[in-house]
């Protein structure tokens, strides 16, 4: 027997793991919490196969522990017990519906180990609500011992929650009901607080709804199976729910079914505390709530009355403070207004929390992905279960999800008459979101014939509207004799669509998840990009890449995609920049401090206020600054990064920081990872020289072929460039201090010091070198210092932008020195121009006319780019021209740079491509 049980429980465990093929696989503990509707965070402390018997011990003569002789008469269920921090849960393994005990440890009044008999290990638990539970463990002795030890430990830890127990039980109608009818040891005189229905009447006629009979049935059930914090759910629980809950118990059974009762018990003061803490504060959510207060179930009297409105306001507001990510979403007002008819504020608050957090997550979130996903699931299920309907909808381009969205969002509350919607809610809280799907499918199925005649969305909406308003009508059909349409709906929904299980739901959600999320993502992307201010230095493609990168960095931290309230903190920003620019590589530990210090400055420079991080707009505007095309603006943008206080001055520390940052920012060029224009020109010129040398008797009419590879002294170029960048920094430092202006206000101080001691005199002679003499750089001086050096001027004009890879979707490019050389060859046009220039200048004297003639003949669009250079007849082309070009802006740099990346692949692949042929 025990072996069999073990096997069964193992098998059932396995199936738990198999049923969640979600992307993010839930842990065993998470599954456990979801399955038993207890709050996330509980973990399974221990589990053991066991047999369990539950009896009501209210009878005065009932022994506290079962007598040995009676044991054989007990009706044992066999299954498994789980122990978590606050719960003892038993589930029947054979039939999941026949028994499920949920016991909050606070309810344990007494725990006793029974004298062992036949090697059986028995525990007896007596609860505050008069249940006597006998557990007979199945398994090896040591495990049983361990389990009972763990149980004891958890009980001890839980002791401090117990004082809250009695006041909590007094808020529950079930306790009052039993106490009133003399079936409980508790003595509760005052009825507990309840919903607005107590004041404003519950919807529907209580006689017609058989309220009394239902209450009595529940009284019987609760007496036998326990209630609230310790209750056994068996088949009749579901049956009682299916016939509709009695008014006074409805709220409590809702919170019990969905599990919010446990959250309320364990956080008994949160609701009032939260309201008190945030009193008088305002928020966007509150404004939105105010707008809708009078528009929530306006047909119900309470919501024309301050009492009802105030309760609704308080619950919605409190929740918006608890969960600012959701805040307030229209439809929540309707759901909460409905709950408040049957529930106290505290109950409704926790029930709403459970709803948004665990039952229908994402329904009311900022992107509403949950409800959109379930519309997709619904449409897929219509396709699968009602293919004819699906075809019809497709044919006429009817979007069912447009119609069904409000059903799901408002849990049918604004769709059907309230009394019926509440019946659906009764089942929904117990069975979860699949209930909504089952009902929606049934609605479509029942109206199938009429819907097949509809040719557009509007007509469908009319059919549904008619149907929902005729739910109380009797059906003439013979099968449904004397049944109302609503009863038909229940039968179809929960019998014909009973195969829509949680597993099916999860499966369909997983299947459609990516499509829905990417749909929302691409919509939000477009919408967000549309909202951005103009960024003239960034191409559309650049912005798109910036957005993708931004979102991908955020996604690691937020489940919610593209939420527009999301901002980047510094850590995310660093991740964003990592690899996007050549000078940030977070894996490079050597200069990590330097990288971070620069990033912090950039971060502070880009954000709009000190409180928050970077928004997408901040990033786009910031990137636009980095990519600035205009030299002067580019310099002043850079200056601003160091002008932290916005005074227009950068002090001594700032100057030193700039120079340090310049060293690290120029790393890609110093290491020969990138070549700047000067180096490129020099190499091109060298290649041209070689080609010309090889073919001394060149005639300008000859074709120039550029070899695909050439031997270079690569080290030499890298070294030369590296030197140039080192001197850039040292020149900067030197010039910056040379031209730095003394801080005038402090001049007096220096003079004072001077009169005090004369040993500093020689230093003071040059205030810039005196570390104690404050100096500063203003923008004009900074500009002058930058422009004084050719490499640095070029750096701000174009070079720096080389290191920013906004056009790359992939991570860091793996360009190396060899590629750079090959690339110069690949972009043969420029070399060819250089060759042509050299030949032309050699030949000018003897055949100028001829060469010019053929030049015009071969004139084409590509060559057009070089005409500006052609005018420059200077033989000493190399450096002068580079400089001239910086000023004239006439070199087709962008083309060159692009070719840089594009041609690498071509080059490696085929020799033919390498042979660029240019006609003269």
């Amino acid at each position, binding site marked *: 027997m025990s072996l069999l049980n073990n096997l069964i429980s193992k098998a059932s465990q396995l199936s738990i793991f198999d049923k969640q093929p979600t992307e993010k696989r839930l842990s065993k503990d998470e599954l456990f919490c979801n399955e038993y509707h207890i709050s996330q965070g509980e973990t399974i402390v221990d589990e053991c196969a066991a047999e369990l018997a539950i009896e009501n011990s209210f009878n005065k003569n009932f022994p506290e522990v079962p007598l040995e002789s009676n044991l054989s008469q007990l009706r044992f269920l066999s299954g498994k017990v789980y122990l978590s921090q606050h719960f003892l849960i038993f589930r029947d393994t054979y039939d999941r519906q026949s028994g499920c005990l949920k016991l909050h440890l606070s309810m344990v009044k007494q725990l006793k180990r029974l004298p062992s008999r036949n090697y059986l290990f028995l525990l007896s638990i007596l609860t505050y609500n008069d249940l006597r539970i006998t557990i007979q463990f199945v398994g090896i002795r040591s495990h049983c011992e361990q389990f009972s030890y763990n149980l004891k430990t958890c009980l001890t830890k839980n002791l401090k929650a117990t004082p809250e127990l009695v006041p909590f039980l007094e808020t529950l109608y079930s306790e009052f009901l039993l106490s009133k009818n003399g079936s409980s040891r508790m003595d509760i005189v005052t009825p507990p607080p309840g919903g607005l229905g107590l004041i404003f009447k519950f919807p529907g006629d209580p006689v017609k709804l058989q309220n009394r009979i239902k209450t009595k049935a529940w009284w019987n059930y609760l007496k036998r199976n326990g209630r609230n914090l310790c209750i056994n759910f068996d088949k009749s629980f579901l049956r009682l729910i299916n016939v509709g809950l009695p008014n006074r118990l409805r709220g409590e059974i809702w919170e019990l079914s969905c599990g919010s009762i446990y959250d309320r018990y364990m956080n008994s003061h949160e609701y009032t505390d939260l309201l008190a803490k945030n009193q008088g504060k305002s928020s966007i959510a509150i404004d939105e709530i105010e*707008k809708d207060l*009078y528009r929530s179930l*306006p047909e119900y009297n309470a919501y024309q009355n301050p009492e009802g409105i105030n309760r609704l306001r308080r619950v919605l507001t409190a929740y918006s403070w608890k969960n600012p990510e959701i805040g307030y979403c*229209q439809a929540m007002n309707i759901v909460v207004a409905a709950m408040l008819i049957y529930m106290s504020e505290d109950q409704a608050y926790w029930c709403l929390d459970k709803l948004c957090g665990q039952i229908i997550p994402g329904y009311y979130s900022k992107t509403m992905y949950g409800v959109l996903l379930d519309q997709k699931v619904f449409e897929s299920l219509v396709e699968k279960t009602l293919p004819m309907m699906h075809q019809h909808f497709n044919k006429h381009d009817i979007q069912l999800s*447009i119609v069904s969205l409000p059903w799901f969002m408002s849990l049918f509350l604004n769709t059907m008459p309230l009394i019926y919607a509440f019946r659906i809610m009764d089942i929904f809280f117990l069975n979860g979101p699949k209930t909504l799907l089952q009902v929606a499918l049934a609605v479509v199925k029942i109206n199938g014939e009429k819907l097949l005649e509809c040719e557009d969305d509007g007509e469908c909406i009319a059919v549904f509207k008619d149907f929902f308003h005729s739910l109380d009508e009797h059906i003439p059909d013979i099968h449904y004799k004397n049944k109302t349409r609503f009863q038909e709906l229940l039968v179809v929904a929960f019998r014909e669509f009973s195969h829509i299980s949680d597993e099916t739901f999860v499966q369909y959600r997983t299947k459609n998840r990516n499509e829905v999320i990417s749909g*929302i993502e691409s919509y939000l992307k477009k919408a967000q990009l549309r909202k951005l201010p103009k960024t003239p230095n960034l191409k559309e493609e650049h912005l798109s890449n910036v957005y993708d990168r931004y979102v991908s960095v955020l996604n690691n931290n937020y489940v919610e995609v593209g939420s527009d309230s999301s901002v980047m903190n510094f850590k995310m920003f660093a991740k964003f920049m990592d690899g996007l620019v050549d000078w940030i590589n977070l894996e490079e530990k050597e200069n990590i401090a330097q990288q971070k210090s620069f990033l912090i400055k950039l971060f502070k420079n880009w954000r709009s206020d000190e409180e928050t991080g970077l928004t997408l707009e901040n990033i786009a505007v910031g990137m636009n600054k980095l990519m600035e095309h205009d030299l002067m603006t580019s310099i002043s943008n850079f200056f601003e990064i160091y002008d932290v206080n916005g005074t227009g001055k950068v002090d001594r520390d700032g100057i030193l920081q700039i120079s340090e940052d310049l060293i690290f920012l120029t790393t890609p060029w110093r290491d020969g990872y990138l070549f700047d224009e000067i180096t490129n020109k020099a190499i091109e010129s060298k290649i041209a020289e070689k080609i010309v040398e090889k073919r001394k008797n060149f005639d300008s009419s000859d074709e120039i072929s550029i070899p695909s590879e050439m031997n270079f002294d690569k080290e030499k170029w890298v070294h030369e460039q590296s030197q140039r960048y080192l001197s850039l920094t040292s020149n900067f430092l030197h010039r910056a201090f040379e031209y730095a202006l003394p801080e005038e206000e402090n001049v007096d101080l220096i003079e004072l010091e001077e009169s005090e001691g004369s040993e500093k005199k020689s230093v003071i002679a040059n205030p810039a070198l005196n570390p104690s003499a404050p100096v500063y750089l203003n923008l004009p001086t900074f500009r002058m210092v930058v422009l004084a050096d050719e490499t640095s001027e070029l750096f701000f004009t174009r070079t720096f932008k080389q290191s920013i890879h906004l056009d790359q979707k992939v991570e860091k490019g793996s360009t190396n020195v060899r590629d750079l050389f090959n690339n110069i060859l690949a972009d043969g046009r420029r070399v060819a121009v250089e060759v042509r220039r050299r030949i032309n200048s050699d030949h000018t004297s003897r055949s100028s006319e001829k060469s010019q003639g053929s030049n015009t003949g071969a004139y084409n669009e590509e060559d057009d780019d070089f005409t500006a250079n052609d005018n420059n007849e200077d033989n000493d082309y190399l450096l002068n021209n580079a400089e001239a070009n910086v000023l004239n802006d006439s070199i087709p740099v962008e083309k060159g740079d692009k070719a840089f990346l594009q041609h690498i692949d071509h080059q490696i692949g085929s020799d033919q491509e390498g042979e660029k042929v240019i006609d003269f």
Partner: protein
Amino acid sequence: MSSNKQITAVKLVLLGEAAVGKSSLVLRFVSNDFQENKEPTIGAAFLTQRCTIGDKTIKYEIWDTAGQERFQSLAPMYYRNAQAALVVYDVTKPKSFIKARHWVNELHEQASKNIIIALCGNKYDIVESEDNDVSTENEDDDSRKRKVSVQEGQTLADDEGLLFFETSAKTGFNVNEVFTTIGKHIPEATSSENAAGQERVDLTNRLDSSSTESTCQC
């Protein structure tokens, strides 16, 4: 109304920030009514209204969308295949005008090419008196309730090729004119011209399928 007349069905969508009066405009147009407290629009509400303009009858199929920010990603479901759009802002709320601008941009980018867009500055009743009062002409006056000038609205409309109105759902000012003008701009519907799904033409005299439907003589 002659029974043989063609009825052109026009799908029209209302967009705009929350609480600018989208639903109220529709209610005024469809039922000539005004209500202070209406149930909020979840997703979107659907209403129809017939309108006779000259010799043609137009059946407006109106999708009145929810204005709350987070519902915006649903909008494409509703403006899909729409022939006309009403972008509404509140003349007393500059933010709603910015939002209107976003909607216009989105429609131009995403909606049907030939969509007719009307820009509506609603709640004209609030500013009507100060507009007529010459003494408060000073534009910079903060106490003025009007925060979006007629000129701003007109400029946006001119730049983007929109119809432009200032309306009041409360008093009914200009409301029917909006719909009539849109109707006049709807191209004469002949089935051969229609791209599939772009326009729906109701050639038969089908029974009114919607309970909200009524008729109006504009």
